[in-house]
C-alpha cells in the first residue's frame, strides 16, 4: 500500500455523516483530512493551507460547490490549481456539465463506496501503486 501520509485532502460537504464517511475511508489509507461545512469555509481553508485534492459536494448552504469552484479557479496560483473532485447525488448530464464548466477535474455520483473514494483520492494524489 502506498503511503499518502503527506497528502492532504479537503472534504467540503454540509452533511456530517458524509464527512465522517469520507474521512474514515481516507484516513485508513493514510491521507490527512480536513473538513469544511460549505464552500465559504472551504475557501477559507484553501487560502490558509495547502491541499493536494478537494472533494466537494454540490448542494450546500451558504456557498454551493459550483460557486466554490468558480471562485477557486479565479484565484491566484497555486490555490486556483487545486485538483477538485465534485461529488453529487445528481446524475444528470447538466450537473456534470455545470461542474466541468466551473473547472471540476472529475465528477462522481453519490453514493460513493468508501473504497471507491479512497482509490480516486489515490489516483488524484498520484502515488504509484
Amino acid at each position, binding site marked *: 500500500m502506498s503511503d499518502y501520509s503527506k497528502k492532504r485532502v479537503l472534504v467540503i460537504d454540509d452533511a456530517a455523516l458524509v464527512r465522517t464517511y469520507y474521512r474514515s475511508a481516507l484516513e485508513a489509507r493514510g491521507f490527512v483530512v480536513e473538513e469544511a461545512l460549505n464552500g465559504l469555509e472551504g475557501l477559507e481553508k484553501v487560502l490558509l493551507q495547502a491541499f493536494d485534492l478537494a472533494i466537494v459536494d454540490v448542494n450546500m448552504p451558504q456557498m454551493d460547490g459550483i460557486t466554490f469552484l468558480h471562485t477557486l*479557479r479565479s484565484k491566484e496560483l497555486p490555490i486556483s490549481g487545486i485538483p477538485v473532485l465534485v461529488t453529487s447525488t445528481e446524475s444528470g448530464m447538466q450537473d456534470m456539465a455545470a461542474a466541468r464548466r466551473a473547472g471540476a477535474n472529475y465528477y462522481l455520483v453519490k453514493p460513493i463506496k468508501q473504497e471507491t473514494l479512497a482509490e480516486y483520492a489515490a489516483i488524484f494524489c498520484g502515488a504509484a501503486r
Partner: protein
Amino acid sequence: MNEFVEQFLLESRELVAQATDDLMALEENPGDRERLDGAFRAFHTLKGAAGIVEFAAMSRTLHAAEDILAKLRASHEPVASMVLDECLTCLDLTSRWLDHMQASGEMPPAADIEADDMITRLVSSMDIGEGEKGVALPANNDWLDRLRGAAGGHFPEAVSAVRYLPDPDAFFQGDDPLLVIASLPQLLTVELALSNRTVSLENMNTFRCDLEILALTKAPAAEIRSALLTVAEKAEIRELTAASVSTVAEDYLTQATSVLKAQVVLLRDSGFEGLLGRLSSAGRTAVNALHYLGSNEAITKVELATSAAQAQRNVEPLIVAIERALESKTKADSQPIISPAPIVAPRALRIDMNRIDALVKLAGELIIVKNAIGHAAKRMQGNEDLATVKSILRDQHALFDRLASELQGAVLRIRVLPLRTVFRRFPRLVREIAGSVNKTVRLITEGEDTEADATIVDALFEPLLHVLRNAVDHGIEASERRISIGKPSMGTLILRGRRVAENVRIEIEDDGGGIDVDRVRAVASARGVASEEALAAMADGEIIDLIFAAGFSTAETVTDLSGRGVGMDSVRTAVERLGGSVTLQSEPGKGTVVSLILPFSLMMTRVMTVEVVGQVFGLPLDSVVETTIVNRDMIVAIGSGRAFILRDRTIPLLDLAETLGLARVPQRELPAKIVVVTAAGQIGGIEVDRLGERLDVMLKPMEGLLGSMRGVAGTTLLGDGRVLVVLDVQEMFR
C-alpha cells in the same frame, strides 16, 4: 448494514425534524423561499445519508420528494398544500423506517413496496398541483439493480450502465432511440422496458415511445457521455465502480484512465475564466493519474506541457500531451489492490460540550475533597487534636455532599432531551385529526426547550397524542357552533412544557366547550363506574376526575379518533407508569386544561415496601395500581388459583408468602391486604401481611451468580443498612 448506521439514525432523525419544521412553516407561508430551500437541502442530505448506509428504498423515495421540491424552487410560485402533505407523509414514512432500523437493526422488509407507493403518490401530487405542466419522471435509482438482475452477472467486464428514456414523441421528431443505443461504443447488452406502467396492450398508442432503455457497455462513462450528447437530458449514465468486486484492480486502472480523459474534456471546455487554475489543476491531476498508472515516462512530458500551456495561456499543448500519454498507456501494470480493512466506528452519543465540561469540573473538585479527607485521616493518625479533625471532616463532608448531588445532577442531564423532540410531531398530527372531523384547529407549542429524561420524552408521544385527540374530538366545538357562541371559528390548542422544581409539567389547553359535568355524571352512572349515591355526593371536580376511571369514555358515538376502546384512563396509566400524575381542570364554555406532571429523571426508582412473614420486600411503584383491603368472603377459588372482585372486575390473586415459598400460619380471620398491580397489561392482586411505605431508591440490578435469578428486579440498600429485594412483578404473574 454498515458501521455508519448509528450516526445515520441520529442525523436522519434531526434532518427529518428539520425538514418537517420547514414544511410546516411553508404551509403557514407558502411563499417562504428560505424554508423551501431548507426543506430541499434536508431532503437532499437525507437522501445522501440513505445512500451511505445503502438503503436504496429510502434513497429513491427521498429522491422523488427532492425532485418535487427542486421543481417548486424553480417555479417561483407558492407551494400547493397537497404537495406539502405528500412530502410530510414521505417524512413520516422515513421516520417509521428509521424506527424499524433502530429497533431491529435491520432494513424494513416492506420498504421497497412502501417506497413504490410513496413515489407514485409524490409524483401524482405534483401532477395535480401543477395541472398539465410538468409530469415528473419517476425517480428511479433502482434501474441499475434491474439491469444487473437482467444481465444475471454475465457481464462482469461492464464499465458503464446507461438508462435512456426517449422522448414520448421521439418518432415524430425523427429520432430512432434504438439506433442511438446501438451506436454506443463497446455495447454489451440492452434491456427494454415500458417507461409508463399504465400502458397495456389494449390502450397502447403505437405512435408513442413509452420506452425505458437500459444498456451495459465496456466503455468508460466519459466516452458514453460524448456518444449520448444529443440526448443528454434523457440519459443517465453510471460508472459501475464498486459493483464488480472481482475486477476491482482492473476497474481502478480504467478509472485512472477515465480521470485522465476527463482532464482533456475539462480543458476542451475551458473558457478564459480561471484558465490558469484549470490548466494547473488538470496538469497536476494528469501527472498524478499517470503516477498511479505507472506511466512514468509520460509524466515529464505532461509536466512540461503544463508549464508551456500556462505560459501560452493555451490549453492545446496539455491536451496533446495527455492524449499521447493515453495512447501509449501500458497495460502491464495490474497488481491487485488490497482493499483497506473496514473501520469500526465507535458507538457515539451526542452530548453538549458544556455538560461534559461540567462533569470534568466536578470530577476535579471531588479529587480535592478526596485529598482533604486523606489529609484529615493522616492527621488523626498523627494524634492530632480530635476537635480539629472533626471540623475538617464535617466541612469536607458538607462539600462532598454538595458535589455528589451536583454530580448526580450533571450525570442525569446527559440523559435529557428537550421536549421539542416530541412536541414537533404534533402540529401536523393535530391538523390532520382536525381535518378528519371537519374542524379547524391550530396548535401552539410553548416551552419546547424544557428538558426531561430521554426515556420520558420518548414515552410521552402516545399519551400526549391521546389527550390532543380528545381535545380536538370532544373539546373544540364545530366551527358553526363556535361562531354562534361568539368564539373564533378556529379552535386553539396550546401544548406547553415547563420545569417545576424536580418535575416537568406538560399542559394541554383547549378553548373548547369544557367538560359537561352533568353528562359525565350521567354516563358514569349508566356505565356503572360509581353508584348513584356516590355520584350524588361527589363534587364537580371529583366527577370530572371520573373521566380517568377505567372503562369510561364520554364519546357517545365511537369516532375514528378517540373511540378506540381506550379512554383517558390509558393516559393516566401511561403517565403513572413514568412516575407522574395527571390532573384536569375544566370550565364550562371556556375550555379544558389537562396537566401531566412527570419526574425530571427516571434514574430513581420508586418502590413500595410490603411485609410478609416478617420480611420486607419492595414492589416497583410504577407497576402498583392501588392497595386495597378485601374481606375473605370476596376471595374465591378459581381452578388452582384464587381471585377476588374489585369494582365488578375479577382479578387473579397471588399470595406473596406462597409465591416466595415462605411458610406461615394462614390468617383466615383478618381481611386480606392486597396490592393491585399491572403486569404485562393485565391487572393482578398480591396478598401481603402489611403494607409499607413509598421509597425513592437507586435500583441495583442483580449481578454475577445472582444475575440469572428470576423474579427479582434488583436490590437496594435501606437506610438502616438492610438489603431490600425489589420483586419483578411481571415475572410473578407469568
